[in-house]
Structures are given as structure tokens and as C-alpha cells.
């Protein structure tokens, strides 16, 4: 079943997070005004991203300078003679038409640039077709790439408060590390400035206090924390303010098990 929505409401970084953590396989179709994009994922990792329909075709490799037209024809012939399920990328690598690393570098750079541009879209319809895979002759990245660092780079390109404030409504919030970020720490590459902030996160000081200590602006701090948040490295929460004079709801009294059991029995009988 397709997941549909609009990037205005459910941002690209949120979607990439969902695909990554859900180990999703499928094709993400995006459309904004006259632009389009198509991203293929295999178990949460990115296989290819294109911004033009024709770029899903094998001729992309010639345009990128990875293969000559003659080499591409050889690859196509090899694909035609291969067993079902073999991909063009596998044929190219196995027949050593081009070193695997070169193919990886070229398609990865092409894909990353395609994705980064999408972060600038203020909105856009999306449709994720689960289990849709690229055609066998579509060139895909030999080693599919993690979306974590794509999210971080995309977030670096956000230049307005609106999107950030959805997740970080105020600088009174406190950031703290997730207890088990697991393997996601590996995929993220932080800049020096980001490390300066990252190293100061302690679960006690507010973002405003961190901004003061690091000499960064509130916006810079919030944007970086938004990146950490989106990649699942940290969580943010309101700083408890026990002395606040604003009325907070009282803790509910513990209820008796017998009372709960009576209600359960009644609901079951309905």
C-alpha cells in the first residue's frame, strides 16, 4: 500500500528517517510544481535518486562519464544474457567494465546532489510505493548508502525557522542523548562546529544556555540540534520548571487495581 502525503506536512528528513528505521524497500515519488524526483530504497538504504525521468535509464552512466557508449552496449548485452534478477550494476562490476569504487563514487555523488536539492522544496506531493524496485537496467549504487548523513547535510541547508520550530518550539528545551543511538552514530559525519555543540549536550542546559556557552546564535544551535534530532542521536524535551508559577496539572493519584479490574470486566462484557 502506498504512503501518500505532502512534504509541507511531513518533511523529507522525517520521511528518510521513517524509511531508514523501518528498513523500507520501495520507490519514493515526489512532485513539486514542474519538478519531479524518484528515490529507490532497499531495506532503508538509498539505491538511486533522480530528478529527471530519463536518469533512471542506463544512459545516465554515459552522461556521468562512467562508461563509454560502447562499454554500455557491452553491459547491456551481458545483462541480456544473464539470469533473471541480475542488475546492470552487477554486470558492470562483474565484467569489470569500470572499477566498482568509481561506479560507487559517481552514482553516490549524483544521488546525493539530487537529494540535497529536494530539501529546498517548501512542499511537494509524495507517494511511497512499497516494494517498488528499479528496473534491472537502471543503474544503482553498488553499495546502497545510509540516509543518516543525507539528513544531516539536508538539515544544514535549512535556512528558515519554520521547519525547525515544529520540532524545537523554543530555546528553553533541553537536549539529551538517546540511550541507544546504536549504529546510527556511525553514519553521521559532524562538522567541527557541530562537534563543539554536540560535546556540550548534557541533558541539563537549555539550548539558549548552550548558545551562550558556545557563542553561537540561537538559530545555529537549534538548526544543529534539529539535525541531531532528525538523525535520531538526541531527543529534546522541556526543561522541568518546578518553581514555575504557571499552573501545572497535578500528578494523578494512583488508582486501585480493583477499580481498574471492574472497569475492564464491564468493557469486556459490552
Amino acid at each position, binding site marked *: *500500500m*502506498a*504512503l*501518500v*502525503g*505532502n512534504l*509541507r*506536512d*511531513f518533511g523529507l528528513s*522525517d520521511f528518510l*528517517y*521513517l524509511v531508514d*528505521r*523501518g528498513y523500507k524497500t520501495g520507490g519514493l515519488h515526489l512532485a513539486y510544481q514542474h519538478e519531479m524526483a524518484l528515490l529507490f530504497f532497499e531495506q532503508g538504504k538509498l539505491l538511486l535518486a533522480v530528478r529527471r525521468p530519463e536518469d533512471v535509464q542506463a544512459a545516465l552512466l554515459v552522461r556521468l562519464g562512467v562508461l563509454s557508449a560502447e562499454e554500455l552496449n557491452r553491459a547491456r548485452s551481458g545483462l541480456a544474457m544473464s539470469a533473471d534478477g541480475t542488475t546492470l550494476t552487477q554486470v558492470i562490476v562483474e565484467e569489470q567494465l569500470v572499477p566498482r569504487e568509481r561506479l560507487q563514487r559517481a552514482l553516490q555523488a549524483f544521488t546525493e546532489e539530487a537529494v540535497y536539492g529536494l530539501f529546498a522544496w517548501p512542499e511537494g506531493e509524495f507517494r511511497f510505493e512499497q516494494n517498488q524496485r528499479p528496473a534491472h537496467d537502471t543503474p544503482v549504487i553498488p553499495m546502497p548508502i545510509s540516509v543518516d548523513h543525507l539528513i544531516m547535510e539536508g538539515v544544514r541547508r535549512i535556512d528558515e525557522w519554520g521547519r525547525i520550530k*515544529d520540532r524545537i518550539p523554543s530555546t528553553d528545551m533541553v537536549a539529551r542523548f538517546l540511550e541507544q543511538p546504536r549504529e546510527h552514530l556511525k553514519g553521521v559525519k559532524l562538522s567541527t562546529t557541530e562537534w563543539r555543540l554536540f560535546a556540550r549536550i548534557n541533558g541539563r542546559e537549555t539550548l539558549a544556555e548552550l548558545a551562550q556557552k558556545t557563542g553561537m546564535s540561537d538559530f545555529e544551535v537549534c538548526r544543529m540540534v534539529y539535525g541531531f534530532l532528525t538523525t535520531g542521536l538526541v531527543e529534546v*524535551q*522541556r526543561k522541568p520548571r518546578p518553581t514555575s508559577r504557571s*499552573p*501545572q*496539572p*497535578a*500528578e*494523578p493519584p*494512583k*488508582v*486501585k*487495581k*480493583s*477499580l*481498574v*479490574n*471492574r*472497569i*475492564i470486566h*464491564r*468493557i*469486556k462484557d*459490552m
Partner: protein
Amino acid sequence: MQTVKMVITGAVNAGKTEFIRSISDIEVVSTERRATDDTKMIKHETTVAMDFGRIAIADDLVLHLFGTPGQKRFDFMWEILSEGMLGLVILVDSTRPETFRETNRIIDFFVSFRETPFVIAANKQDRPNAWAPDELRLALRQPAHVKILPCVASDRASVKNILLELLYVIQENSEEA
């Protein structure tokens, strides 16, 4: 007569009224709505989009169900609702990703300041474009221990299941005798 409360909350059109209507012993008491957008209702301080239902548990015990908008501006309602409140159902319209952000705000608002037992009901699972509970967990970024349950608010059996699942959460946090 002892009364206890459950609160049913969620974004606009999440299915709060329908949820309560499916299970209530009485006709649901709803605020008159002039517009489909609940937020328009609070221009006048006296008008709040609320629903009220009731389930008689026994001669001496009644469960009240309050459907309330999730917006922060309704925090004044907490004084009224928190007394005797057992738990919270947060309804989300699984077919409208544009409401997920608002749902997250609601979760944050209702849960951040207190240990409120709650479950998330992924409503409208009978629709073809509904996001599955597992997908909603990722979209709403909820940890594994938070129950996200499939729901069809118009179906009494489904609503019963949600209330029971919430009651099991409450049961875990309750004290003996």
C-alpha cells in the same frame, strides 16, 4: 457514586466524537460546531469543542469519556479533567500525514509534564490509504513501549479494544487493593 474519567484527544477530525459515540451508554453531548476547524471555536472563550459520553460500570461507579481538542490553548481544561482521570487515548487520523505534526504536539503537551497512562489509536484503518501502526510509530517517533493500536472509531469492537488496551496500561501502574 464514584466517577472516573478518560480523555479522548487528537487533532481536528481525528475521530474523537465518533469514538465516544461508538461506546457511550448515552447520546454523546457535543458542543455545537459552527465550523469544521475546532480552532475557530475558541475565538469566544466560552466555546470549547468538547464531547461527553458515559459508561455505567456498576451502580456505584461511572466512567465518563471526554473528547477534547489537543491544542495547548486548552490547558485550562486540565484542572477540570485531571481530577479522577484514569488515562488518555490519543487519536490520530492515519490517512492524513498533515496531522501527524499536530499529533506530536498533542502527545508532547499531554504527556511531558506528567506520567499519564496513554495509548495512541491509529484511527481510520479501514481506509485504503491508512498508514499502518508501525509506520505511524516511526512517523510520530514513539518508542516501542508506547502502544500504537489499529482503530476504526465507528466500530464498537475496535473502540472497546482501545479502551481495554489503555486499561491494561493503567492496570500496570495501579496499586493493589
